[in-house]
């Protein structure tokens, strides 16, 4: 998967910060980039493997979203903190080691506290290491910008990715089983079981939506929707 970092991200945003208004403008821009314009899920198309594989229910999507968000914010912060001390030639292995240690923490935590979700996400938790979004942001943004901006960028990119995960997970779960938040108690504990909503009962589930081909089709529709909104915005 190619990495399509736009030039806006690569230039050093902290170089000339003078007024409060400009500071706010930078944060606004970062949020806009991460959530919509340069959304990792539906614009950069990074991290498609977990995106398509685990979004068969909202619970799975939410679990992966939280894990990815945490790793992304933490790795961006750490990479930004050590950016002056890392030799350029070996920066990628170092970034990968940081990300891998963070993912290991997440994996062990999920194993301890949300065991069933850990089982249902399976291989896709350790695979967060290879998620291109994380290494992409570390390389394209965090290694060139200050800690505050890098952390905020990680948060926004993570939220953008989470939004796509949740949307895809919700669409697929409704189509396939007619429910929302099925099995949420495996993630948040028993108190949250009231969140499970059954929209309709069906004896014959629409299996395609739960299978990977359905994920591709629905993902395509979401991207088309985003492009349609953008096109409409340009026309006006």
């Amino acid at each position, binding site marked *: 998967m190619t990495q399509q970092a736009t030039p806006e991200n690569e230039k050093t945003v902290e170089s000339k910060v003078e007024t409060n208004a400009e500071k706010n403008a930078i944060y606004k821009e970062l949020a806009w980039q991460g959530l919509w314009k340069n959304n990792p899920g539906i614009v950069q198309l990074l991290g498609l493997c977990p995106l398509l594989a685990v979004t068969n229910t909202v619970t799975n999507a939410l679990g992966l979203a939280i894990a990815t968000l945490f790793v992304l914010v933490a790795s961006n912060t750490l990479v930004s903190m050590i950016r002056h001390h890392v030799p350029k030639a070996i920066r990628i292995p170092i970034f990968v080691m940081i990300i891998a240690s963070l993912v290991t923490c997440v994996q062990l935590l999920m194993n301890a506290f949300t065991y069933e979700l850990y089982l249902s996400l399976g291989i896709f938790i350790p695979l967060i290491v290879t998620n291109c979004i994380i290494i992409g942001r570390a390389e394209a943004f965090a290694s060139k910008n200050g800690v505050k901006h890098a952390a905020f960028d990680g948060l926004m990119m993570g939220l953008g990715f989470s939004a796509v995960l949740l949307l895809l997970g919700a669409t697929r779960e409704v189509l396939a089983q007619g429910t929302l938040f099925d099995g949420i108690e495996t993630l948040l504990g028993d108190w949250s079981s009231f969140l499970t909503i059954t929209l309709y009962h069906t004896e*014959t589930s*629409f*299996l*395609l*939506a739960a*299978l990977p*081909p359905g994920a591709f*089709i629905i993902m395509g529709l979401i991207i088309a929707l985003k492009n349609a909104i953008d096109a409409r915005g340009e026309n006006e």
Partner: protein
Amino acid sequence: MAFINASSPHQRTRRSSSQIMVLVMLCLIPGIALQSYFFGISNLLQILLAGIVALSAEAFILKLRKRPIINTLKDGSALLTAILIAISIPPLAPWWIVVIGTLFAIIFVKQLYGGLGQNLFNPAMAAYVLLLISFPVQMTAWLPMLSLQPFELSFLDQLNTLLTGQTLDGYSVAQLSVKIDGLTMATPLDTLKNSLKSGFTSTEIFDSASFKAASAQAILWVNLGFLFGGAILLAKRVIHWMIPISFLLGITIFSFIAFAYQPDLNGSPLFHLLSGATMLGAFFILTDPVSAATTVKGRLLYGFLIAFIVVLIRNVGGYPDAIAFAVLLGNMCVPLIDYYTQPKVYGGKA
């Protein structure tokens, strides 16, 4: 006075797309008529439903794409797709099956790729695969032929089953497919596959009561009906001979190899030729001019390739019939096949 020395052909007629589609639909009639005779009038209801859905979905998308609606609808391709979907699904499948399939075929497989002439995949078969994967229970509930059924199914019974899933007396399709003696009746290919798994040899299976209850004769007649219609298409030169002939030859050869190797575990070539969707596939599905190969050699290769996949899946795969899967896999190979089989330009270097 000038004499024009042109080489033959001297008289040419070009058929428009809509003429071709109408001819194809007319040639489907014998097969459809036999299928409706054996399996019930609900077959025609499915065609009606699919046709309405296909035309409205096509019109809706054309409006969104700002294309001419009436002219495009008149080419008949949407209607043909609808008919092919409707006759491949079980006649008593609930109404939403055919609606979902037709919507998927027209909107996703055809129009999203750019409409007639642009689709990579055969819309009807893509829809069939979608339905088979998503709704295996409904899509495999082929009832035995009417004369073998324990209950009389009137027209109203069939209409009611299509709409609500139950006959007027309240029998579900699953109950209808079980004979009074408790034997489940499926299609011949189904029965062969399941009985082979339980350890019978194919000779035993072909003689067994459950195979005879599997309406083998009806399916045979339906296949002959499609063969007849296909022969007319060939004679009218609507389709080229390469694909059907190479496909049927391929089925014969490959199933003969399997049959010769282990006659007890595989159906005979004749069985493969006249069961399932072989004839419908050979003349009406593989020959889709949009998604099939276009060169002479390419068409031969395309037919053989699909035949190979069909025999492979039928004999060792998990599904009883495989025309739809094989056609989709064949469609994927078409760009490659066409690329490597371009004929050499006359006088050009080889």
